[in-house]
């Protein structure tokens, strides 16, 4: 057993820019909002999946109890994460597996690349995995001369189109059938030129393409949905069965898992196998749940490696509130209900972790370096409507975490911004009643701006953000406190009784 020092380094390395975007959310969202096809695709997909989820969640009488169970199992797991990981390592090792600890993305990639090279293979098949998306493993393998083939249908579409996933569950959610047909015709070797955009025909084309890979690949690389510490069992939950092909056919299986994926016992797994499919695909149960424990002579992969990835998770774990973000089981329910995600899509978030959970997870994993850091814009990519919390199967209080991360973004200001000065000035006015009343006098200016039309239709920056699309009413002739003073006198109270609303 190796000794592990969780917490070194605390912030994720991001060699391929998969956790950190290159432009702020408002700038990236600008492009997505202008893409009308994208908005139609996303709107259709998220509405469909929202309705499916709501229907199957509604069938479960004890859904709220299940959510609370999921929440408390995760809280318990995070409270004793090092101990559970060591237990997992002991169990995997005892059953013939090998465990590797990776502090960050670069270390994880180096471990995997060396393991693949050790087998002499020059191609690998992959099960859909957020952890290896996070580390940029495919690029690292390519640099080492190893071709990585994604076998999840949606990941395959994304890979063939040289694109990036924009959703946990449906990485190609931003594509429609017609676009997928075009991608297959252009990128898939040997595809039937008469291919139509009928879903069955598209699936059959992908199946023929993938089967060749399954039968020849010597190495499979997977992520993991849950890892059971008590027996060292790994589990992948999927819809297509392609994952199971990768998990069982190759001689060598390498699994990369974020350290937060561990659960203490099999009975804990039972809770999550109820919560996950209903929350993610809107199904009562997913079609394929694979579990494997170490190696079994003569059956399945004969060599098994587990890479435990920190990559910034220690940083998240160190925050008493923020660590809730590690409870995430990547179901994507928060994305599907988020009105911001629905209109801007996954790429606007820069990170491979999009949507509300990404907006709090990405800045915690890689830190906020200053006011111009793209990470500083992510926690503001929300109207704080709270739909994400209601949908979250493990009750992550995402709105609270967004506010906490906004506080982190403010704390990262290296010099006072215009917003800082405004907020400070307003706080002074709002703690001094006389100054507050004085500030209200400035409303007369608003009435001048409104003029005779009674509406304000253009304001200078930054308030032009408002008036580009919305009018503001003219401020009233009389504030509430002026009305109160006029109708109730300077007393703070009205007289008791029904008809004393006027001048007291």
């Amino acid at each position, binding site marked *: 057993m190796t000794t592990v020092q969780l917490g070194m380094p605390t912030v994720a390395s991001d060699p391929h820019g998969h956790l950190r975007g290159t432009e702020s*959310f*408002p700038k990236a969202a*600008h492009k997505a*909002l202008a893409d009308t096809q994208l908005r139609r695709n996303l709107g259709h997909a998220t509405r469909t999946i929202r309705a499916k989820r709501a229907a199957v969640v509604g069938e479960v009488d004890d859904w709220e109890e299940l959510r609370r169970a999921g929440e408390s199992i995760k809280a318990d797991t995070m409270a004793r994460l090092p101990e559970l990981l060591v237990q997992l390592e002991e169990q995997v090792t005892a059953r013939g597996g090998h465990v590797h600890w990776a502090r960050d993305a670069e270390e994880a990639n180096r471990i995997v690349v060396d393991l693949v090279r050790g087998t002499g293979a020059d191609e690998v098949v992959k099960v859909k995995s957020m952890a290896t998306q996070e580390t940029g493993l495919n690029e690292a393998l390519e640099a080492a001369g190893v071709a990585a083939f994604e076998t999840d249908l949606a990941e395959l579409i994304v890979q063939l189109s040289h694109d990036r996933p924009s959703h946990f569950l449906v990485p190609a959610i931003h594509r429609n059938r017609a676009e997928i047909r075009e991608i297959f015709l252009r990128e898939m070797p040997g595809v039937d030129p008469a291919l139509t955009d009928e879903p069955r025909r598209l699936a059959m084309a992908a199946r023929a393409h993938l089967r060749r890979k399954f039968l020849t690949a010597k190495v499979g690389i997977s992520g993991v949905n849950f890892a059971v510490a008590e027996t060292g069992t790994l589990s992948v939950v999927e819809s297509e069965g392609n994952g199971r092909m990768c998990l069982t056919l190759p001689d060598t299986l390498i699994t990369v898992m974020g350290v937060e994926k561990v659960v203490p016992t099999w009975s804990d797994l039972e809770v999550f196998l109820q919560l996950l499919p209903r929350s993610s695909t809107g199904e009562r149960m997913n079609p394929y749940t694979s579990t494997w424990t170490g190696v079994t002579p003569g059956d399945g992969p004969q060599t098994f490696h587990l890479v435990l990835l920190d990559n910034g998770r220690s940083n998240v774990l160190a925050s008493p509130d923020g660590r809730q973000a590690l409870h995430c089981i990547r179901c994507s329910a928060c994305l599907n209900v988020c*009105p*911001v995600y629905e*209109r801007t899509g996954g790429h606007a978030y820069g990170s491979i972790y999009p949507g509300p959970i990404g907006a709090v997870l990405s800045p915690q994993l890689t830190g906020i370096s200053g006011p111009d850091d793209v990470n500083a814009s992510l926690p*503001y*990519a*929300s*109207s*704080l*409507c*709270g*739909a994400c*919390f209601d949908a979250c199967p493990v009750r992550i209080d995402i709105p*609270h975490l967004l*506010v906490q991360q*906004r506080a*982190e973004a*403010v704390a990262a200001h290296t010099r006072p911004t215009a*917003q*800082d000065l405004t*907020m400070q000035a307003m*706080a002074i*006015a*709002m*703690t001094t*009643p006389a100054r*507050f009343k004085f500030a209200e006098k400035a*409303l007369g200016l608003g009435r001048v701006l409104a003029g005779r039309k*009674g509406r304000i*239709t253009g304001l200078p920056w930054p*308030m032009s*953000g*408002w008036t*580009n*699309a*919305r*009018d*503001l*009413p003219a*401020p*009233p*002739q*009389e*504030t*509430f*406190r002026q*009305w*109160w003073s006029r109708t109730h006198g300077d007393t703070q*109270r*009205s007289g*008791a*009784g*029904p*008809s*004393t*609303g*006027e001048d007291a």
Partner: protein
Amino acid sequence: MRIAVVATCLGDAMFPQAPIATVQLLERLGHEVVFPADQTCCGQMHVNTGYLDTALPVVRHHVEVFAGALDDGVDAIVAPSGSCVGCVRHQHAMVARRAGDEGLAQAAEHGAARTYELSELLVDVLGLTDVGAYYPHRVTYHPTCHSLRMLRVGDKPLQLLRHVRGLQLVELPEAEVCCGFGGTFAVKNAETSTAMLADKMANVLSSRAEVCTAGDSSCLMHIGGGLSRLRSGVRTVHLAEILASTDEGDASVDAVVGGGAGSRSTQRTGEAAGAAHGHGVAR
């Protein structure tokens, strides 16, 4: 009952119709209303923009002003705003504890336990669903996110609206989806906010309502600001104004003062509106 009103900073300065209607309604129902004049703002904008330290004195001021009102024998505190009550109930103590001020946190929790959004006060505390209102218009209700999810007011506003005589309540499609306001979100992410607003407005227009109501002036400022730009002819009116209206006075039209995001057919001067109140409140 002696009830202290939180006018809210936005209500005081920009949309006095809502707190005025709240006062008129509660007085009509026979309650004594108190206006603690030192009040300013609950600090929600600071908190939700991430200025938790800057928010601390604002929170302390709010807590102290209303602790004073409670000491003075006030039974309940009411605000015509789900989001301000949400901040008081769920964020004041958090801001205080983060700053290590446990005393303030406990005082905040004490005040928060007696602070209600208008529909909560009417239905849960006063036990009313019929407040004797009359409002002969076709109305749709937008459940604001903080009323819906921070406070869980559920269908209390709808229960109240269903008992308003003359009012025809029409369903708002996709009602529970955010309108896109979100405080500083509306300016910081103006384009996304506008895209969300566009869908909300389409749903409001498809309901064929004359009036869109809600329990928060801020969301109504957003929706109304968009509807005004479209010249849609649909007005936004705060729930309190509808509940304060009687067959002797339509609070949403008569009450006060210019402005209002929607297009108004009738606007009176402050003086005339003041005179109108006397008739509006007596029943």
